[in-house]
């Protein structure tokens, strides 16, 4: 019992438990639903999980820093609609991507600057900028976005696509490489060390010559960057632009990060954990829909399961243990 408790209190232990739970859920699905482990079903789950995993990169970094980013769904919608619109206006798609990604990073940097420099809770800042961004996009397109994605982007994320000889689209192996890079970034670079240092002790980090404002600007702009990438990928996935396409990602990215063992107070968490959280969420969703639950019931069960999972291994310390 003490061993289990020690395991659950370590970050690696939490990640391990999250992966085990994802595996168990998959086992339950395979036993309960015929075709749950069929190649097509697994392929679909991998693609959907990959999209959520990209969107959750930024939330992971921001949460380790001790913040939260509510602008992710709005940036996703912004990138989705603006990329489609500009591509529809006959812009070169590479130029469109650079334009959208740079703009997104500027929005993110603004979020980070305001939140840290003026010490305003990032929840409010990112919510406010998110509303401005979404309103501006809707105003620009008059609520009816048009345009579509180039065929290459669609093939990149299509469930039926293939990466060379492998039976899954390129987004899946690309995500594996990207994940490895993010994990390296967190574990082996000065940026990663500064991120954890600033997250676990915002007061002491500046004394170690870490510039908090610069770190917040950089991290929030990375968050916006990956949200924008998700938006462009979603454009390829759904085929047409839709301003609210990012809305499900608001709470899902937070849930993935927390299920993966990160603490919202900062300084703790890992991208490997977020990946485990992403798998858990995707498995739960697929499982419940496969069991014939109505969307409303899926949502309610998801709520119960998130709370149950986090109460197993995501508990905070009692105030008496923090003195």
């Amino acid at each position, binding site marked *: 019992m003490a061993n289990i408790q020690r395991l659950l209190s370590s970050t690696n232990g939490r990640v391990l438990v999250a992966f085990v739970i994802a595996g168990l859920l998959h086992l339950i699905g395979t036993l309960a639903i015929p075709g749950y482990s069929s190649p097509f079903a697994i392929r679909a789950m991998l693609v959907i999980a990959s999209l959520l995993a990209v969107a959750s990169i930024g939330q992971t970094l921001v949460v380790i820093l001790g913040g939260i980013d509510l602008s992710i769904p709005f940036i996703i919608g912004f990138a989705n609609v603006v990329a489609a619109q500009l591509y529809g206006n006959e812009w070169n798609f590479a130029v469109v991507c650079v334009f959208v990604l740079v703009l997104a990073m500027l929005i993110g940097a603004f979020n980070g600057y305001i939140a840290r420099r003026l010490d305003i809770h990032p929840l409010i800042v990112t919510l406010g900028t998110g509303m401005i961004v979404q309103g501006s996009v809707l105003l620009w397109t008059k609520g009816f976005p048009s345009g579509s994605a180039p065929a290459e982007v669609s093939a990149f994320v299509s469930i039926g696509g293939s990466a060379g000889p492998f039976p899954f689209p390129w987004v899946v192996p690309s995500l594996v490489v990207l994940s490895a890079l993010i994990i390296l970034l967190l574990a082996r670079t000065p940026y990663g060390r500064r991120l954890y240092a600033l997250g676990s002790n915002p007061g002491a980090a500046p004394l170690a010559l870490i510039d908090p404002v610069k770190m917040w600007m950089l991290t929030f702009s990375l968050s916006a960057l990956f949200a924008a990438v998700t938006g462009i990928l979603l454009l390829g996935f759904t085929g047409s632009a839709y301003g609210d396409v990012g809305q499900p990602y608001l709470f899902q990215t937070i849930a993935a990060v927390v299920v993966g063992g990160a603490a919202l107070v900062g300084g703790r968490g890992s991208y490997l954990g977020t990946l485990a959280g992403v798998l858990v969420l995707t498995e739960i969703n697929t499982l419940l829909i496969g069991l014939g639950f109505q969307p409303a019931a899926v949502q*309610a069960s998801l709520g119960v399961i998130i709370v149950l999972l986090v109460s197993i291994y995501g508990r905070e310390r009692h105030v008496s243990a923090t003195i």
Partner: protein
Amino acid sequence: MSSRLGGLFRNTGFAIILLIVLLAVNLVLNAARFHPAAWGALIGLAAPLIGAAVASAPVILAGRGGIDISVGPLMGFVNAMVIQVLFLKLGMSSPFLLVPAALLIGGAVGAVNGFLATVVRIQPIVATLGTYLVLTGVTLTILPAPIGPAPGWLKAMAGTWSALPLIALFAAWWIVRRLPYYDQLMAIGSDDRAAYTAGIDVTKVRFIAYVMTGVFAAVAGLMLTALIGSADPNIGQAYTLIAIAAVALGGVSLAGGRGGLAGAAIGAIDIFLLQSVLTSFNVSTYVLQIAYGAILVAAVILTAVQERSARPEEI
């Protein structure tokens, strides 16, 4: 009394200046809508947002990431329960049955949130995200499509008697402010470790804050029901984020321990008045959304700058 007003001004900062400006602009633009004869309907229109903001405040005041994002869905759940289950199915129509039942539902949901956030110690945003999803799902299950009508007395709460539920809310908070509990809540919000070492039962005080938020959200849900005069499963969720925005606008610190329910209400009235100004210009809902966001960001920036200039030694 003047020092109390001064304190309110310091706490709410630019929200109160914004309130005066917006009120003046509204009086010029919408004289008919803001005529004293129309106040009943006007207050009824603003009441659900004010209620949602006031309800969101106690858990935020309690600090350490305290937040309840299930306030909006809880309003929707109360709306669905009161009309669909209690009124139409069980035939309860008396206010003396429906109001206590609604408050009980709110208190029970608040207690669940409080249990998860303070006893199980799940991070509040995650715990209340769980209840957010559950309440949204359950509301859609018991009420798949909008249904009506509401009892007559309840509809009057959005017209002639619209000030009554708001007065009840603030009377309740006025009593809480006179209890030792209020000082404990603010102490925990500012520094829970210091409060704990001073012998305050941190868990209990925070738990009660969640129950209070639940009960207040139920009142907001009743005001929402009065306003729409029916039950609608999709109307509640939208209130969560806008209510938190109103709370921040009203000078309540999201870190806890600073601000009050009056500030939250002023923030909500600001947003309502802004909405009223912009709709009188016939702008699209898109512009409305940009304006919400811009005002929110501008107001928190101005408040932060004002606080910095007030305490230069702390920078």
